[in-house]
């Protein structure tokens, strides 16, 4: 009798789990919810200013501009309430701006890193200065956004950039043995021009596959096992749902920029050699004089530490620091430990240099 009663209970539990699973797998979580206003746009790029949570007299005078990668949505910086880097920085009194590159169309296939770093970014910064009424500012670049901000900082050292924060920025491609991407995109095996001739832009699906194939078991199996095991834990489900929403919202990368990333950086490491040409001018990292904080994730398999830790020795910055945190490429800023490790350190470093 008791066994018969337990059966429907077990069935209903499994049914509930399946319902949760279907919901999580087929719907999108609300991410990037912090209120913001559009202050500038050009082509697909948009500059947002987040609504301040502190009164003006309690805010730092220097605005902070977040520059994300060009092949992902920036909503990972503002994942969900209580787990948002943007929200954290607003509460710490920063005037936070976000540059969202948008989704490139086929008409943008010729856009290069030159255009992003030295045309769109300076224009957005000009608008930021006009809106904020300040002449100095701080820049935070994540991943490819780190490449763009580094190029900008080296080419426009007198443009008012006081602080540069680089998060998991792939800048040094010298250690080819340690870079799986470098091996995959070697010219012996990978014809970048043929791919771009076929698609124009680098398809988001291929970029997504590349990122996931670095750790195939974790991304294609373990991740779902973890969800299945915790379907009765709303906190885990909510977190997983938000992260999955961000990961599955893939966008292509402009063809010209992708070609440069592969040829100039992965294959020839031109940026670190001070030989990269942007709009006809060499990018000389010694001209980068802004205060510099490089944040490295020890477990980052997409941008291994060897790609970020060597920059400091190459720049002309008098105030630089490498900060290492546990976690992976995304977990470093969006994981459960981010609020305890990475974010407070970023705030402390920046606050001391934003007066």
């Amino acid at each position: 009798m008791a066994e018969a009663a337990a059966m429907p209970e077990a069935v209903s539990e499994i049914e509930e789990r399946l319902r949760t699973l279907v919901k999580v797998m087929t719907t999108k979580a609300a991410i990037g919810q912090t209120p913001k206003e559009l202050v500038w746009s050009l082509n697909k790029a948009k500059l947002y200013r987040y609504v301040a949570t502190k009164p003006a007299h309690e805010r730092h005078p220097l605005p902070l501009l977040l520059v994300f990668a060009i092949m992902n949505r920036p909503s990972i910086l503002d994942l969900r309430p209580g787990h948002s880097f943007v929200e954290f920085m607003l509460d710490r009194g920063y005037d936070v701006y976000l540059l969202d590159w948008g989704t490139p169309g086929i008409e943008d296939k010729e856009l290069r890193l030159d255009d992003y770093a030295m045309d769109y970014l300076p224009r957005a910064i000009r608008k930021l200065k006009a809106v904020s009424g300040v002449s100095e500012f701080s820049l935070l670049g994540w991943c490819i956004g780190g490449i763009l901000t580094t190029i900008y900082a080296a080419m426009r050292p007198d443009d008012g950039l006081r602080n540069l924060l680089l998060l998991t920025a792939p800048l040094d491609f010298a250690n080819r043995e340690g870079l799986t991407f470098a091996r995959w995109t070697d010219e012996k095996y990978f014809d970048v021009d043929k791919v771009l001739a076929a698609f124009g832009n680098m398809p988001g699906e291929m970029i997504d596959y590349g990122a996931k194939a670095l750790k195939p078991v974790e991304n294609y199996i373990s991740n779902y096992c973890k969800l299945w095991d915790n379907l009765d834990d709303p906190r885990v489900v909510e977190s997983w749902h938000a992260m999955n929403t961000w990961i599955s919202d893939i966008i292509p990368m402009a063809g010209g920029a992708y070609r440069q990333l592969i040829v100039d950086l992965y294959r020839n490491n031109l940026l670190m050699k001070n030989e990269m040409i942007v709009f006809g001018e060499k990018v000389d990292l010694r001209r980068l004089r802004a205060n510099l904080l490089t944040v490295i994730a020890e477990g980052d398999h997409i941008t291994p530490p060897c790609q970020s830790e060597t920059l400091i020795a190459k720049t002309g910055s008098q105030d630089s620091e490498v900060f290492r945190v546990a976690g992976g490429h995304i977990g470093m800023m969006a994981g459960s430990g981010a609020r305890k490790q990475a974010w407070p350190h970023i705030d402390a470093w920046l606050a001391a240099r934003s007066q």
Partner: protein
Amino acid sequence: MREEKNGSEQSFDPFESFRGMRDAYLDVLSKTMIEAVNTESYAEATGAMLDSYLTASAPVREALEKAMVQTLQQLSLPSRQEVAALAQRFTNLEMRLDDMDAKLDGIVKDLEEDRKIRAKHYSEDALAVAMGKALRDLALASRQEVADLSKSIKNVESRIEKMGKNEAAPHAASSGPGEDRTQSLATKLNADRAPAPAQPAAAAQRSDQAHLSPKKTIAPIRMTARKTSEGKNPR
């Protein structure tokens, strides 16, 4: 006895050991796979697969593209390339607008700085009074210029009117008996030198609006000048 058995069954999770085994297996598999994808052979294999896919799909893709372009042409619809070219032009326009926006921002900034500099030397009230005075002077000067211009036009019109009358007088005189031509010329000369008589209201209004209808004003002047020339202007 049964209750004890039920209690132990509730706390027992038959999947727990399965999960442990699964996780251990996945750990091993994960390490193996990470090593596998990080090899030259994997890079070569994926590169070859991608290359063969691109090679095999290229003819199909090209044929589809051609067919699509032809279909769109027949339907009088723009092709993908044309839409892309249009989008690029829009972006160029946006950039030019952004350039103008930058210039405007620069002007606003300069004005703001100028205002700050002035504010250092004048209080807000003094600045407002000074600006008000400057505007008033400008308005008065403009009004004076308009008045002068209006007066000049009136003089010209009255002279034209008089000359027109004097032109008509000799003809009338010559047709009448006993009229002296010398006297007629002296009368004309005196009339030219005499101060302008008060104009009728309609004439004054016309002279006020003269600047609004230049053709009406210019035509009589030309005609009068020609007549004067023919009639041997006494001057």
